Structure formats: structure tokens, C-alpha cells
């Protein structure tokens, strides 16, 4: 299906205009992060001089490195927790037959009807009563179990031929070994997709880290950015933008690398 030339021109025009509009807020921020303050105040688009002062300032005046490390730890721990728990649950739903499986599957579906925001008050009390405020445990543990991840992996485990499971039973291979040596390697693509998705959403989490941290020890970078924005004087936009750019860089890179896989995986998990 090739388009006539004039249609092609229209498409490229629309695509370019849309891309400019959509990417503008990020590009403006990126450009501002390299501007000296007087450039920003005078409303320039392109900096007169290129400076890294804003980046130096934000790391210097602010425990940004600490926050980045916290976010990295939190996101990786949540990602691993979700992968382990979702894959174990998906394995049970696909390869094990037992009484009550359908009821349990329904319970998993039911969890999608409970928004985290609606249960945040008791969750905060739980974390506080356990003494988990300002700990990585408090920041990560509530997010390990995940119905969406379980469904996504269940979809992919279903592609694995049942004959393999039967053969492994005859050969006397146990379920745990079958799960580790056959199922997980065969579902690598879906695991990567879920991992990227889990990392992205955890890195960008906002409400829970706001509640579960009260000091800088385990504070994540999103809440750090909130602090930066409210503490900095409003005429220091360059510094704030430098902070924001640092915050989005890891997830943007991850997204650019994994966009194709993510798109396919999310559509599969969502629509099957």
C-alpha cells in the first residue's frame, strides 16, 4: 500500500507538526537546563552560552545522587519482586491443575477493581505500625503482587506446548525445576517486557513514596524533585530543569530501547 505523493507530503507535515508540539515541553526544559539564568529571564529559546552550572548546582546543593540511588534500588527491587511473584502465579494458573484454581483466578481478577489510592490509608497505617516508614521494605513490598503481570505472563506461558510438561513429568522433572529451566527461559521476551514496564512505573511512582518517606534517607527522586521545585526560588528555573532532566533520563532511555517490545507486550497483556 503506497500513498500518492501529495498524501505523503501531508502525512509528513502532520507528523512533524505533532512531533514538535508533543516534544516541545521536554525540549524547552532540556534547553533551559543548559542556560545561564539571565537567558531564561529574557525568554530565550537557544542559549547564548552553553553552561553546565545548573547541573553542578543541583548535585551540589541537593542530595540528588542519593535520591537517584534510592529510586534505582526501589525500582529494581519492585521489578524483581513483580517478576518472581507474577511468574510463580502465572505458572500455577497455566501448568498446575488443582481444586479451587478458578476461584483463585477470580480473586486475581477482583484485585484489579481495588484502586491503590482507595486503600492508601490502612496501608500507610500498616507500614507505620511495622516501623517501615523510611525503609526500602515499606517502599517496595506493597507492589510485588500484581494481577496485570500475572495475566501478561499467563498469556505467554500458554504458548508453551503442554507436551513439554507431560514429557517432563514422565522424565520425573519436578515443577520447580520445570519452571526454572524450561518455562522462564522460553518466556524471556515477556519477562523483559514486564520488567521494563515494572521499572518504568516504579521509577515514576509519586503518591506512595510521598507518604512512606519523611526524610532523605530513602526518599526517591520524584519526591526529591517535588522538594526541589518547592524549595528553590522561582527564578532558578535552570537548576530545577536540570533536576527534572536527570530524573527523566533513565526512563526515557529505557523507553527508547524497549519501545517495540513494550508496545507488543502491553497490547498482548491488555487485549487477550
Amino acid at each position, binding site marked *: 500500500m503506497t500513498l500518492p505523493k501529495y498524501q505523503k507530503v501531508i502525512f509528513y507535515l502532520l507528523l512533524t507538526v505533532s*512531533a514538535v508540539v508533543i516534544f516541545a515541553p521536554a525540549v524547552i526544559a532540556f534547553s533551559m537546563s543548559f542556560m545561564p539564568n539571565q537567558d531564561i529571564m529574557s525568554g530565550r529559546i537557544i542559549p547564548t552560552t552553553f553552561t553546565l552550572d545548573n547541573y553542578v548546582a543541583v548535585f551540589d546543593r541537593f542530595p540528588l545522587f542519593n535520591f537517584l540511588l534510592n529510586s534505582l534500588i526501589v525500582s529494581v527491587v519492585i521489578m524483581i519482586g513483580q517478576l518472581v511473584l507474577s511468574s510463580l502465579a502465572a505458572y500455577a494458573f497455566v501448568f498446575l491443575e488443582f481444586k479451587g484454581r478458578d476461584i483463585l483466578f477470580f480473586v486475581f481478577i477482583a484485585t484489579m477493581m481495588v484502586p491503590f489510592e482507595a486503600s492508601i490509608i490502612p496501608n500507610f497505617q500498616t507500614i507505620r505500625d511495622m516501623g517501615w516508614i523510611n525503609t526500602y521494605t515499606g517502599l517496595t513490598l506493597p507492589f510485588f503482587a500484581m494481577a496485570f503481570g500475572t495475566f501478561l505472563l499467563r498469556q505467554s506461558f500458554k504458548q508453551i506446548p503442554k507436551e513439554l510438561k507431560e514429557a517432563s513429568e514422565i522424565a520425573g522433572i519436578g515443577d520447580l525445576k520445570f519452571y526454572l529451566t524450561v518455562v522462564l527461559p522460553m518466556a524471556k521476551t515477556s519477562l523483559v517486557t514486564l520488567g521494563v514496564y515494572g521499572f518504568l512505573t516504579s521509577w515514576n511512582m509519586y503518591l506512595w513514596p510521598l507518604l512512606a518517606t519523611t526524610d532523605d534517607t530513602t526518599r526517591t527522586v520524584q519526591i526529591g524533585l517535588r522538594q526541589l521545585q518547592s524549595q528553590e526560588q522561582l527564578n532558578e528555573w535552570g537548576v530545577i530543569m536540570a533536576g527534572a532532566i536527570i530524573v527523566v533520563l533513565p526512563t526515557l532511555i529505557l523507553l527508547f530501547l524497549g519501545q517495540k517490545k513494550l508496545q507488543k507486550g502491553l497490547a498482548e497483556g491488555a487485549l487477550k
Partner: protein
Amino acid sequence: MSDLTVQIDKDYTKEFGKAKKLQRLKSFFKGVLFLLPSIILFSVFLFYPLFKTLYLSLFLTDASGATTVFVGLDNYQAIFTSPLFLKSLEVTFLFVLYTVPGTVIVSLFLAVLANEKLRGIGIFRTLFSSTMGISVAAASVFWMFLFHPTMGWLNQLLENLGIEAIGWLTDPDWALISVSISTIWMNLGFTFLILLGGLQSIDSYLYESADIDGASYFYKLRRITIPMLSPTLFFVITVSFINAFQTFGQVDMLTRGGPQNETNVIVYSIYQEAFRNYQHGAASAQAIVLFIVILLLTLIQFKLGERKVHYQ
């Protein structure tokens, strides 16, 4: 001789039945074992909090959130007569009304554009999906500047066009619209990605046969693309609804619920009530209202989507 056979057969069946029962019990335990980590965490952080929220909503609480006096449905009566909460509900519904159609229409437009097989289309796809990788906090910072009364680009643009400046985040008439615009931008990436996936799974022979019949571009869009995309569209619309009801971050960063509570959406209201005013009981009643809204939306999604749609 025949008696003996029967006896053996009987024993054998009995033993067999026992073994089968044992086997079943074993497989039950194995199944539960694989599911146990998820079940425990769902119980602690999802089902228990749900009932606890319901329980808390029937009580007055002290500053630490411990229950003091049982008040029955008084909290509900109080919130539904409180102008602040009613305002919050109104704001939430307006916010949903602005953001859901906005997000879906713009994303659909982008997805249709990016679905063409053109050279370099991959770059556009990546750019359009990019807002998915930008966190609420960072996106809010970007928009905070764009909305800035004097330095912000939006007002500078208006000034160049000879239009009077707008107090994007400070004018009560504009604040919710501004927050909605930034929210649509934040949600575009994800919605675009899902819709593009839906478009790409439409069988290309449909278009080929339409081409043979000489159908125009817009005819194909209306008669093939949109109908074939409807399950995906339906999914995207429900997810957008649910997301809109759960909005918090951009309100916290951009307006703190103000001016004059014009952007005080329900989750922000719950947050204020529970963690600023320490009224865990009243906040729980609000949380139950939010839960019921989301529950209804999810049920509609399951019912109409015939369980085709699964999402968190």
C-alpha cells in the same frame, strides 16, 4: 479363584482411590504454594485495607488514625453535605470530562498518523510514545514553566498574538483546564502505544480489498479502521477513566488543589483529609466513594469487553 480376583480388584481400587486423593491433595498444595506469595501480599496490602477502609469510615479517629467513637454512617452524611467534598466530586467529574476524550482523540489521531508505512516512521513513533517515560513530577515541572505567568511560553505566545495573558494556574476559571492539558500530554504516550498496537493488528487484506474497490482514505478510516479498532479503543477509554479518577501527582505539584479548590480532585481531597487534617475516618469515607466509582467502571469494562480486557 474368581473370588480371589474380585478381592484383589477391590483392594486395588481402594488403594488407587487413596493414591488419587493423595495426589489431588498434593497438587492442591503445590498450586497454592506457587500462588502463596501473591495471595499473602494481596491480602495484606489490598483486601485487608479495603475492609479496614470500610471499617474506618464508620468511626471518628484520633490523630494517629486509631478509631475513637463509632459514628455509623455519619461520615458519609458529613461528606455528602460538605461543600468541600461536593466541590471535589464536581471537579473530579469535570477533570474526567476534559481529559478522557482529549487523551483518546489526540492519541487516536497520532496513532493513525504513525501507522502509515512511511520512511522514518519509527522516529515519530518513539517521539509520540516518549511522554510515557516522563514521570508526573518531571512533567509537572516542565508544564509549571510553560504556565508561568510572565516567563512561560504560553503567555509569551499569547502576548505575541496580542492576546491578554492568562493566569493558567492562578485563575480559578483556568486552573482545572491547565491541569487537564498537562494531564492529556502526560497520558498521550501510553494511550498512543496501545492504540498503535491495535492498529497494527488489523489485517492488511481488508485495506487491500478496499483499495481494489477504489475506496478513499477517509472511507477506509471510517469503515475499516475505527470498527476494527473498537476493542482497543474501548480498553483505552476505560483505562483513561480509571486513571483520571486516580489523578494526584500533577495536582500536588502544579496547584496543591487551589485556587479556591478548583483543582481539588478526589484523591487529593483524600490525601488532604487523611494526611493533613488527620481525619482518617472521613477520608476513608471518601476513599470508599472512590472505590465504588472505580469498581463500577471496572465492572462495566468486564461486562462490555466480555473479559477480553485485562488491566490493573
